[in-house]
């Protein structure tokens, strides 16, 4: 039995690894062809962009150097081969290795995303606990706020926050600075819409938990409202939100593209935007691959967190008997 369990776990791990490799391959493939579909000549981009006057000889030399004169399929296979050995290649525009470049930008974006996720969780928890078990009006206000928050686009939120906090009141810097104050507006911009999503699922499961028989049992033991919330209901409410956090992290990184650009904050998002603008294919692929890797890691982490919060064994789909 124990042997069987170990084998089942190892099998699970193997499946997960194979899945991760598949995702990385798919990401690399889609990105490679998507970038190639942007009109224009990559060789021109290498030589300084479409505006610069370049001789046909120079273009031909660059094409030969970067292998751009080979058939697309061959280039693709070549790219895959390099990725498989961990080589992200050389940036066309910045004349440096993509690996160190991407890694140097990763930290800023990770800090931004993790802080935003934390703040979003806090807002969602506060809103959900405040608005449940307090009557219809509170519930409607809570759910209304969540819907509005979830619908706010990042670019609008960022500009509005800048106008209010930097231009009118002048309390926070409009562009990212080295100190913590510069992080406030970008984090809030990313956290508010996410808090709307998380709050919606949390409040729904919190309401269900508070109406469940085990909460009635706890009350019948003399448990206080706070005890009911902390010892029982919140844990149940957190489960779906934890499951959602892996996805949320991915959406935060895509939000970072907008937010880092607006707040002039260094990071993966801005690097990606710049690279797409100048058709710096290796950097685009490098950023996307790193983001995919982080996303896979986050998914594993949220799975582990779910397992910790809900240690019940997962049941297989085949039910027997009644």
């Amino acid at each position, binding site marked *: *039995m124990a042997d*069987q*369990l170990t*084998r*089942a776990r190892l099998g699970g791990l193997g499946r997960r690894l194979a899945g991760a490799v598949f995702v990385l391959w798919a990401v690399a493939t889609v990105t490679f062809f998507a970038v190639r579909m942007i009109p224009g000549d990559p060789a021109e981009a290498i030589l300084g962009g479409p505006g610069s006057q370049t001789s046909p000889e120079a273009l031909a030399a660059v094409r030969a150097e970067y292998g751009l004169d080979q058939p697309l399929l061959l280039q693709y296979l070549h790219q895959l081969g390099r990725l498989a050995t961990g080589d992200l290649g050389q940036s066309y525009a910045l004349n440096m290795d993509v690996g160190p470049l991407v890694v140097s930008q990763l930290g800023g974006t990770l800090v931004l995303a993790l802080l935003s996720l934390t703040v979003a969780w806090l807002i969602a928890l506060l809103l959900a606990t405040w608005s449940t078990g307090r009557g219809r009006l509170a519930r409607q206000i809570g759910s209304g706020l969540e819907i509005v928050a979830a619908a706010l686009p990042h670019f609008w939120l960022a500009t509005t926050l800048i106008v209010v906090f930097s231009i009118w009141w002048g309390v926070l810097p409009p562009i990212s600075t080295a100190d913590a104050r510069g992080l406030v507006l970008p984090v809030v911009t990313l956290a508010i819409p996410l808090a709307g999503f998380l709050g919606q699922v949390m409040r729904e499961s919190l309401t269900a938990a508070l109406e*469940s*028989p*085990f909460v*009635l*049992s*706890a*009350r*019948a*033991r*003399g*448990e*206080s409202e706070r*005890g009911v919330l902390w*010892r*029982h209901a919140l*844990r*149940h409410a957190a489960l779906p939100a934890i499951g959602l956090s892996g996805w949320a992290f991915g959406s935060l990184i895509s939000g970072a593209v907008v937010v880092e650009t607006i707040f002039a904050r260094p990071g993966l998002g801005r690097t990606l935007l710049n690279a797409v603008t100048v058709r710096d294919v290796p950097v685009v692929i490098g950023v996307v691959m790193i983001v995919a890797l982080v996303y896979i890691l986050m998914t594993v982490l949220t799975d582990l967190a779910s397992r910790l*919060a*809900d*240690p*019940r*064994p*997962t*049941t*297989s789909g*085949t*039910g*027997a*008997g*009644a």
Partner: protein
Amino acid sequence: MTPADQLTTGRPRPEVALTVQNLRVGFGAPSAEDAVRGVSFEVRAGECLAIVGESGSGKSVTARSILGLAGAGARVRADELTLAGESVLGLTEPAWRRRRGRDVGLVLQDALASLDPLRPIHREIGDSLRLHTRLDATERSRRVLEVLDAVGLPDPHLYAGRRSGELSGGQRQRALIAAALVLDPPLLVADEPTTALDVTVQAQVLTLLQRVRSEGTAIVLISHDLAVVSRIADRIVVMHDGRIVETGTTAEVLGNGRHSETRRMLAAVPVDKPRGARLAPATETRPAGPALVADRPAVPADPRNRATPAVPLVAPAAPPATPGAGLALEAVGLSKTFRGPHGTIHQAVDNVSFRLQRGSTLGIVGESGSGKTTTARLALALTAADAGEVRLLNEPWSTLPERDRRARRPLMGAVYQDVLASFDPRLNVREILQQAVTGPASAGRARGRRSSAARRGEAARVGSLLDEVGLASGLLERRPADLSGGQRQRVGIARALASRPQVLICDEPVSALDVSVQAQVLDLLDELQRELSLSLLFISHDLGVIQHVSDEVAVMHDGRIVETGTAAEVFTAPAHPYTRALLAAVPRLI
């Protein structure tokens, strides 16, 4: 320690555990009618008082008011409400919290959901100690193990760390009772503590409650089932419409119940009632179509020799078959295994064979996990068997490819226990039945394409289905979620009948219903069987129900059929020890 250890701690007990005088509980607007309207009773130490009534009779609200848990919007008033010698009228919430768990414990139905599924049971049980005593962690865990041992959980050390989902039904109900008893309160309120449990587990839980009572704890037992309460109650209070309509000792109420509600509840208990005997008044079975059921003898002389009604409601698809004229359904050597989450193999159904005679009822009885539901799915050919074959009306059925089977699917109808889950929640009753009448293939097609005559025909058919199952046409526009349990099950039956089936597979069709509603549905199925010459495969964990509805019975245990025979044979002279154990556990009206 042995399970024979005392449950109690020797805490002094007041002679009267609970006094309720003129209790009134209302919800919503002050002008709205109260849910409980002037209820009075008293429970002494070591006494078990049962409050019985249908859903909506106010019995659960009464029980919860005793703990101050009637709900945030409830208005609770009473002339007297005394718990453990102290008045609890108008207590503040913190004062209530000090009493709950200490002076009164609550045991709910469905321990799976009544214990927090994410927390180990020792923490759930230890919570009362943490809240009401100054014991440290070691002392708390000692008391938890003690009380788990006292309620008869084997190996408390092993089980204390498990969660409710990792325990069997009986184990978790014991754990729930342990959680209520850990502080040895003078009063235990048990709200349907054995509903939805298998009979043998139910018997064990009732025995445990008997022991609790004999050690001096007062019990208020809430139930809809007179047979269950008759086993342990000293006195019975019958509630109807928020009032007490009858009260007396158990023997008085069961033997000499005067109020019509009491008599109705007694009549509804199916156990030991002969096949075909009515369980509910005729007007309740089909309130909408009284003329349809008026002129039939209440009890046919010989249930196997049923007369076809003079005017059949619906022309059956095939000429009405007389019982014994062939096999409606035949299973030969069915087996099915499932793979568990960690590669374990579970033999759900093991070499099961049965024969359902045309026009008769075959009851399959067994406890949870015995393979009943898998057998039903195999019979419906919704699950492919590993081995064996099912034949429908003497023709191949389970061996056909699904494409060929589809044309014959209308011959078979299915009625499920959780009927609400089997409806699309966005559809109302009319749409559900319309879809069942037109069939799934045409339901998706544009409505406009069907001729108006066809649509009139469908509407008429939906109307006649409603009549058959005794539902008022006013319910057509309602959604199933807004219907009562009994009404929902009638819609479920109407849907199963829509294709004019000859065989009806009923999987626990009345298990979620109150006894009196169950009685109406059982009567309805019996009438429909006679009118439409239906053959019924009736699956249930409830031996009383099986005994009442079946011509022949198959007893299932661990995936196998351990005994078959006519209902009379199996129930009067059971051959297999498992059948005998099951029968001994059936609650009867004593």
